[in-house]
């Protein structure tokens, strides 16, 4: 009732089928460090590419009521170096450069003169924890307009008083909830939380939200991506 074959034929048939699976063994190449690194970079790059596709510029992050807020004293202070890089507030300016019509030094007052927005949003750390905080400041998009930034440029790059640095894709920079933040919990930023100016980006993971900003550059090319990104973290990490 079945096709009849001899043992030898069956063995060679089985062997052929087994050999078809050899591509699986190729996954073992990932154990070799020189192969592993570029492949994982490729995988992370693919995830970032997919993340950019998933990002919807008009979709807002959930906002919360005041009763959901994490108490200010319990809002974690995360730095890579020092809590307080001892910024001299009197002489502080935000130095703007890159593809903008009006480069130069901007005072805090100029940023505070822009329409102010307050939002209770979730701050999610790459480690997995999160807190809900109250942030206030100017929309980065409004600031980009007054400096005459080329909004078709790819990135907004920032540098900080503690030598931290970060970059943002333009779509996120223009998101209505992306703030140049100078207030937390309706009070001026404290030094530990990034005074006088920090980023608040509810659609991004925590390490993107740089504190103690000193420089802002609109650019199409990044020499460096970000402090953590350059050590292997995701470049986009949108939530």
């Amino acid at each position: 009732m079945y096709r009849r074959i001899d043992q030898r034929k069956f063995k060679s048939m089985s062997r052929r089928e087994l050999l078809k699976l050899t591509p699986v063994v190729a996954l073992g190449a990932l154990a070799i460090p020189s192969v592993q690194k570029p492949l994982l970079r490729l995988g992370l790059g693919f995830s970032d590419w997919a993340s950019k596709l998933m990002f919807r510029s008009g979709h807002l992050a959930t906002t919360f009521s005041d009763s959901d807020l994490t108490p200010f004293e319990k809002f974690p202070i995360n730095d890579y170096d020092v809590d307080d890089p001892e910024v001299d507030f009197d002489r502080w300016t935000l130095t703007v450069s890159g593809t903008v019509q009006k480069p130069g030094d901007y005072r805090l007052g100029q940023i505070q003169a822009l329409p102010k927005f307050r939002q209770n949003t979730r701050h999610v750390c790459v480690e997995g924890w999160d807190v809900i905080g109250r942030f206030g400041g100017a929309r980065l998009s409004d600031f980009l307009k007054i400096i005459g930034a080329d909004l078709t440029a790819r990135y907004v790059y920032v540098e900080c008083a503690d030598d931290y640095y970060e970059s943002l894709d333009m779509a996120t920079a223009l998101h209505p909830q992306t703030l140049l933040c100078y207030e937390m919990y309706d009070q001026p930023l404290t030094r530990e939380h990034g005074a006088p100016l920090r980023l608040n980006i509810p659609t991004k993971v925590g390490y993107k939200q740089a504190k103690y900003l000193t420089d802002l550059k609109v650019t199409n090319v990044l020499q460096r991506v970000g402090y953590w990104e350059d050590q292997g973290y995701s470049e986009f990490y949108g939530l």
Partner: protein
Amino acid sequence: MCFSELAIGKIKAIRSFTACKVRFNMQTSAVAIENTKTGEITEAVYEHPFIVRLCHWVNAVALFVMVGSGLQIFRAFPSFGAKIPEKVLINWPKSLAIGGWLGGALQWHLTFMWIYIGTGTVYLGYQIFSGNYKQVLFLPRDIRGVWPMVRHYFFFGAKPRVREAYNSLQKHAYTSVVVLGVLSVATGFAIWKPIQFSWLAWMMGGFHYARLWHFIIMWAMLAFVFGHLVMVVLHGWNNFISMLTGWKKDPEYLAK
């Protein structure tokens, strides 16, 4: 012989028709192996097409990496809920995790998730379009077969007659694990993109619960893997070979 049963009763007819179809499908790729010395005949059935075997093994590697790197990610905040209060639930050893540090583990996790999703999707697509899902999908009619199999495996009960390629308990396991696979991806996306997929996070009871579900589903998955491996060791040499070559010698459901 199969078709004559069609006349007996409607329900029974549908059932036997399915069984018949399964057998018929199988027989199209069955062979009789002749031992050239003794003349003895052994039957063999081509059970697992290449695409299923490939998905099985690549997915096994991907699952291994996902669990290992996932545990390293968990080490960065070994708790659930918000930052406050933070309680270290489990101090998972670094040696039993993949990636070395959080950034490394995320690279593994965010790379292999695509392989994990890819193999899962190809497998599911193949099962659906080939109609093969019929022999492995757990349906209400399989419920009554579960207890006899449990009795046989765990309480030394008599072995129920084998009529189909997969018994009720196997169907239950292989159906559940597909559901777990889909849930692991859904909970994963709810954690990774809680804003873009806010509806997913909402369905899971919020961001914090999504993370907990993701963790629980991983353990459920590992429970399946444990059972799966135990069964391979105890009963499954033939099954193990068939997942490598596709061919299974002397399958029980063909026994006369």
